[in-house]
């Protein structure tokens, strides 16, 4: 087997391979380090951070739906300071990119976190404008082009790391939203976050989630995510990181053909803790099988039917 180079460069963020664990599915990597070699990951997007510690929503926080899950964690996390103190040193033991995913209620929250994290030992910041599980903020910023452009623009002023803006799929026109992120100064966009959904227990006649609504992820959303990644990639020049239901290398390759320079994997980790390594290996195998030179022979190489 010739040595397959699957390294990608996303706006200055160098990844040894295009597979990143999606925020919220992987904690801060500690637990999964028992099941896999974290050195084999392109990167880790950590659990969404807020300025202050948060406890999140009441349980149940998860419901299984056909080929998917709804979650309503509501950003339980130790806060940005504890992250820097307790988690970065652990993560830095491994040769993998650290992406800090941040969420806030106000523009100021986001700016302050970006400023703090710019001085921390991380590789990129992912702006979560799309969490559907909190009452204020977050997704509200993400559903209008103006909201996205203006918050990106503000945060950019404080951000000294590559800035990835994570988009919500709960919009009419993802192209306009992606363009807004680019216009606001994003170095890359990542999508999709979860799609707002609901599940009902017909015996209790109540929603299964204590929070009533939750965000849908997993294989079920893949076709929608893929379409949105394609649409976004045709509209912006900055790199696109694709996600939504990726469970296999084939899935990941679909996203990369559609224009994603890298992919994130969330829900699939739950069933198969080492799946990200398998996906990274599978991408290399595909490249080799098709005799491509490197990963850039896949990215955006979809041809439309005419």
């Amino acid at each position, binding site marked *: 087997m010739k040595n397959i180079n699957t390294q990608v460069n996303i706006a200055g963020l160098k990844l040894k391979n295009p597979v990143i664990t999606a925020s919220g599915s992987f904690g801060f990597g500690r637990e999964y380090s028992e099941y896999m070699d974290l050195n084999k990951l392109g990167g880790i997007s950590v659990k969404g951070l807020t300025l202050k510690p948060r406890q999140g929503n009441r349980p149940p*926080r998860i419901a299984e739906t*056909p080929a998917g899950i709804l979650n309503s964690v509501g950003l339980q996390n130790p806060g940005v300071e504890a992250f820097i103190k307790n988690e970065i040193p652990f993560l830095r033991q491994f040769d993998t990119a650290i992406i800090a995913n941040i969420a806030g209620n106000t523009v100021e929250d986001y700016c302050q976190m970006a400023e703090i994290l710019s001085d921390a030992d991380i590789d990129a910041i992912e702006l979560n404008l799309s969490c559907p599980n909190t009452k204020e903020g977050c997704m509200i910023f993400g559903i209008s082009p103006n909201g996205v452009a203006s918050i990106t623009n503000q945060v950019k002023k404080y951000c000294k790391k590559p800035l990835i803006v994570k988009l919500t799929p709960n919009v009419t026109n993802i192209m306009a939203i992606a363009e807004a992120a680019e216009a606001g100064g994003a170095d890359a966009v990542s999508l999709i976050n979860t799609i707002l959904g609901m599940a009902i227990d017909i015996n209790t006649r109540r929603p299964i989630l204590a929070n009533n609504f939750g965000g849908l992820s997993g294989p079920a959303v893949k076709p929608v995510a893929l379409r949105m990644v394609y649409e976004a990639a045709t509209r912006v020049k900055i790199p696109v990181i694709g996600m939504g239901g990726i469970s296999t290398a084939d899935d990941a390759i679909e996203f990369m053909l559609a224009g994603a320079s890298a992919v994130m994997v969330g829900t699939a980790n739950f069933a198969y803790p080492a799946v990200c390594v398998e996906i990274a290996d599978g991408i290399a195998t595909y490249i080799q099988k098709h005799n491509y030179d490197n990963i850039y022979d896949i990215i955006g190489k979809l041809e439309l039917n005419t």
Partner: protein
Amino acid sequence: MPKVLREKIKRIENIAPGIFLMNIESGYIAENAKPGQFVNIKCCEGLNALLRRPISICRVDRSEGTFDIVFQVKGTGTEFLCRKQAGETVDLIGPLGNSFDIDDKYENIAVVGGGIGIFPLLFLLNEKKATKKTAFLGFRNKELIVLRKEFEQASDKLNISTDDGSEGYNGLITDLLEKDIVQAGYDMIYTCGPTPMIKKVCNIADSSSIKCQVSLEQRMGCGIGACLVCACKTKYGDDWEYSHVCKDGPVFSSSEVIFE
């Protein structure tokens, strides 16, 4: 350390209506499991039952390198699981979670279980070296009584109740515990089962100042402490926080849990 394992099913048996006992060959689990821990099972391939299902370890046989789980068919996952046959493999992660505190200093213990909550308690009884072990088990009805012989062997006294009085005491198992509690002199109570039962046990233990450990259930995502979905409220100084059943639990001291 928990591992992802593909283990062979040695035996599967329908031991009561809707309840199955599965005996699984796994030197690793038999060797490493502690009472209270669970395994997280991919009940079927592909998209049906996407998430793993947590099931308690009910019994281990270290000499033959096997362990038992006992589960009730509830929905898609357990429905697929119960159709597996001896010789097939089962994809599981385990042993997971913390475990009951079975320190030798507890010399007179009681276990109180209801429904599918009884299974980890059998493992506990078998592992616990106590002077005296009393078991309280509540079932819906006579038909659903399972593992009676095993509990009899593992304990010094077995109390059974059924909701409909078709066998044993007619009523809640906590009634029996309550009657017994003053004179019995337990120094530790372990409980697992439906939330109302657990709460009651905690209250009873509390009012008699007896230590109590509870095993909780919550819907899970990852099962290993990373996704934070399996939250349960616990005390944190004067305040509270959300701990996680899969990693901080499933066993908690009754004094740390906050029931809502």
